[in-house]
């Protein structure tokens, strides 16, 4: 073989080898190097996370202190306030005592309620405050040398002066149910209103203003003396007959909001909870007090109890109705032969009780209280043989034995929930593109080549609202998808050594081949031209049977620019969106304990009691018919006057309105519902080229 053939052979071998390698290389499926700039090189500045900083207000960890505001109105004690009435103030036959009656060994269930209130308080410091119809106006305090700098100091002074005892023993309530009602806990201007003697010496430290004990003592004595003085002007010191005042409103006005407050309230003392101002605008008095004190603004809750208790006594008023002769509700049972009473026949009446404090405090206190009251107060009371009857809806109602029961509901400022990107279970999805959780924020990557419009959907597990509360999502306000920050392509320059990139704050550049893509950072880029914002928050709605909250954002592809958008979705809830659950026992309706007293009824009752006074006074004895609750139904007129239905003292006047005003006061204003921040990355091709 010649050298030429050898060379040719060698060349062929080399060519074959190269061809084989060439074939191997032909099969390589390499990654295509795109002509678009790698926008992944852009970096959005870290987000200053204001949503994560929003923490729920924590309740103070201070030791629990409890204020028991005890209604000391004359109605509570069944005291006859009318000096000229047909019925005597005290007698064996018309024994008084109201909720706090005592007959032999039997005392009203109210005392058991009070003992339970103390028992639930346990070792917590407990203060008893007497809130009756006596008032301590600012002018009176200043006149007595009790100076104060502001309303809060004045409240503090009043609380001290209303303090009956601090950390009392349970037997303190026995004195309240004394058979002698003269100067009792419930009588108007009672000497018992001044308990400063309890706080002499070291005990003064139990008061909020121990240094002013002496002045407070003088002021209280002066007040008691004024009530004792015949013909004294009590208009400033007494709330009797004032339609806009009641022990409940007075207690609320003077609450110490740092403590858990329990307020007992005879609903018959609620004369008016709403009215009209001089200019005709509607006024809700309870709501005003609650709002002025900022009870719900401070995150406090109100527990509302309705307790059916036993009552034996006289009622000289019922709501806004004042009677010249008191109503007799409950009485003693007389042995017909000996004419001496052998049993008390109380009648059922509703007592209201408000528990106001931090949410967890109220929940904890009321849970225990409800359990203890339900377990401890048992048995039946009242007339067992149909001795007592009254007229209701034109029919004679014979009272049957009744038991203790309670109803409870809680009112607190509702929260619709607060949805952010940090909410557990939050997720972002996009119709055309991908989503990556980058850093603390979700990043949705959009493909601009897609012809169909993109839709972004942010979803959260829907928060369950407490206690049957519901929220009308369709009425959310201020829905918007705002671009709060951006890093968008602003210029494509030639990539040459002569190109000078001004590295102003936030400007970033990406070089690709002969082009330099410049991206400019801008906060709120569409503030002046919102029509250029490619994102629109089209809806916030519940899906999956209310289990998921979804915010849908429509993207206008035509307005998109390559780069990053930082979006903040926001929506606010307003108080009107909340739909409170029905509380059948408190709201107007068939089984409600609430009653509404009309002016016609008041006129009817007051007229009839006036007739009673006028004609019965002439006789030496009270007609048997009127021994109790104006007697059973009769179509016969009394002295030409039709005997009306007995006032519904067994119900709670204004209870429905009270609940309504509590709820209105608790209703939040405009509050953030949705604050969600995420990034949208637009990896544009067409625009970048």
């Amino acid at each position, binding site marked *: 073989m010649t050298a030429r053939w050898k060379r040719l052979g060698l060349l062929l071998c080399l*060519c074959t080898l190269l061809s084989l390698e*060439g074939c191997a*290389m032909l099969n*390589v499926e390499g*990654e*295509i190097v795109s002509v678009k700039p790698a926008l992944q*090189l852009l970096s959005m500045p870290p987000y200053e996370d204001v949503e994560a900083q929003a923490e729920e207000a924590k309740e103070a960890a201070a030791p629990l202190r409890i204020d028991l505001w005890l209604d000391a109105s004359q109605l509570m004690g069944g005291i006859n306030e009318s000096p000229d009435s047909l019925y005597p103030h005290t007698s064996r036959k018309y024994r008084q005592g109201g909720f706090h009656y005592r007959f032999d060994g039997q005392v009203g269930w109210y005392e058991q309620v009070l003992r339970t209130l103390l028992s639930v308080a346990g070792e917590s410091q407990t203060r008893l405050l007497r809130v009756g119809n006596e008032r301590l106006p600012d002018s009176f305090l200043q006149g007595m040398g009790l100076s104060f700098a502001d309303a809060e100091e004045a409240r503090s002074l009043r609380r001290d002066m209303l303090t009956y005892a601090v950390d009392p023993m349970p037997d303190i309530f026995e004195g309240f149910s004394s058979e002698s009602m003269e100067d009792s806990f419930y009588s108007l201007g009672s000497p018992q209103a001044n308990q400063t003697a309890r706080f002499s010496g070291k005990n003064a430290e139990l008061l909020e203003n121990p240094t002013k004990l002496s002045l407070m003592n003088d002021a209280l004595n002066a007040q008691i003396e004024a009530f004792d003085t015949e013909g004294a002007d009590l208009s400033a010191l007494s709330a009797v007959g004032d339609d806009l005042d009641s022990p409940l409103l007075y207690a609320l006005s003077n609450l110490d909001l740092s403590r858990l407050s329990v307020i007992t309230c005879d609903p018959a003392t609620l004369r008016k909870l709403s009215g009209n101002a001089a200019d005709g605008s509607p006024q809700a008095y309870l709501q005003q007090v609650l709002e002025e004190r900022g009870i719900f603004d401070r995150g406090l809750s109100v527990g509302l109890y309705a307790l059916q208790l036993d009552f034996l006594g006289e009622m000289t008023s019922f709501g806004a109705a004042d009677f010249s002769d008191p109503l007799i509700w409950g009485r003693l049972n007389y042995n017909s032969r000996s004419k001496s009473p052998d049993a008390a026949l109380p009648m059922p009446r509703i007592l209201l009780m408000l528990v106001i404090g931090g949410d967890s405090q109220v929940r904890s206190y009321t849970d225990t209280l409800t359990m203890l009251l339900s377990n401890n107060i048992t048995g039946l009371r009242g007339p067992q043989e149909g001795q007592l009857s009254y007229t209701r809806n034109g029919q004679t109602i014979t009272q049957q034995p009744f038991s203790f029961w309670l109803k409870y509901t809680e009112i607190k400022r509702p929260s619709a929930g607060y949805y952010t990107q940090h909410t557990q279970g939050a997720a972002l999805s996009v119709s055309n593109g991908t989503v*990556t959780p980058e850093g603390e924020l979700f990043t949705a990557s959009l493909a601009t080549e897609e012809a169909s419009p993109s839709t972004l959907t942010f979803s959260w597990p829907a928060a369950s609202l407490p206690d049957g509360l519901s929220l009308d999502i369709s009425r959310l306000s201020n829905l918007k998808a705002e671009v709060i920050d951006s890093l968008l392509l602003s210029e494509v320059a030639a990539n040459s050594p002569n190109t000078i990139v001004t590295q102003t704050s936030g400007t970033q550049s990406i070089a690709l*081949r*002969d082009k330099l893509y410049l991206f400019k950072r801008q906060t709120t880029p569409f503030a002046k031209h919102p029509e250029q914002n490619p994102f629109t928050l089209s809806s916030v709605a519940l899906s999956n049977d209310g289990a998921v909250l979804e915010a849908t954002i429509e993207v206008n592809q035509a307005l998109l620019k390559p780069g990053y958008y930082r979006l903040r979705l926001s929506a606010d809830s307003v108080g009107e969106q909340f739909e409170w659950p029905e509380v059948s026992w408190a709201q107007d309706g068939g089984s409600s304990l609430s009653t509404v007293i009309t002016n016609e009824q008041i006129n009817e009752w007051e007229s009839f009691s006036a007739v009673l006074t006028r004609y019965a006074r002439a006789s030496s004895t009270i007609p048997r018919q009127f021994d109790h609750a104006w007697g059973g139904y009769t179509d016969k007129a009394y002295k030409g006057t039709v005997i009306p239905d007995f006032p519904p003292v067994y119900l709670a006047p204004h209870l429905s309105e009270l609940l309504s005003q509590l709820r209105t006061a608790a209703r939040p204003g405009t509050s953030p519902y949705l604050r969600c921040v995420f990034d949208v990355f637009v990896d544009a091709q067409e625009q970048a080229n």
Partner: protein
Amino acid sequence: MSSLSPVARPKRRVRVHFSNRTKVLLCYLLSFALPPLWLFLGITLVYPYQLTGSAPTIARNMGDAFPFLKSSLLTAARLAAAPEAGSPAEWAAALEARDGQWIVFLAAALGLAWAVTLLLQLVWRFSHSRALDAAKNTRLAIAHYRWTLLLIVLCNLAVAAALWLLGVRFVEGRGLWDYLVYFGAYPINVLAAILCFRLAAPPVLSGRHGFFKRL
């Protein structure tokens, strides 16, 4: 005798002649310096302003083409891979690694072609430097020159083809600058070899009017 006096003798001008060897060496140096210089200038002056950011994933492609290299190139391929959901810093690192690996590959490919070209040319040169039977030797040298040149062209073509198949063909939007920078050195390589063949042949083969010119 005075005419014999060294003082009286006229001064002779000293003529400095570059030896043929020096000229040959300079010819080799100049010719074979051109291809690397071309690539160097392309990478330093052209690449950053015309081609930056367009480097293919050469380590991964080489690993795919030559499975026996895959394990060795795994780390490099990982470094240059586009990170899924990576941070901007990771992306920058990947692109930087990609650019670096591509430039190293370009240099290595040209270095291979350059070395083979120079080697073949030197083998030819030293095979025909003996001064025996000059005419026959010259005829043989011309024939060998043609074969060697063909081989050199084939080698350069092969390396350029590998460059195309492994990298350049994956670059979208490639243009004149891509071809000039990436492939321009290979024709220069061949030209350098031709230059050395024809101008820097051994003295026994070259002459003023011969096929191989003497410098």
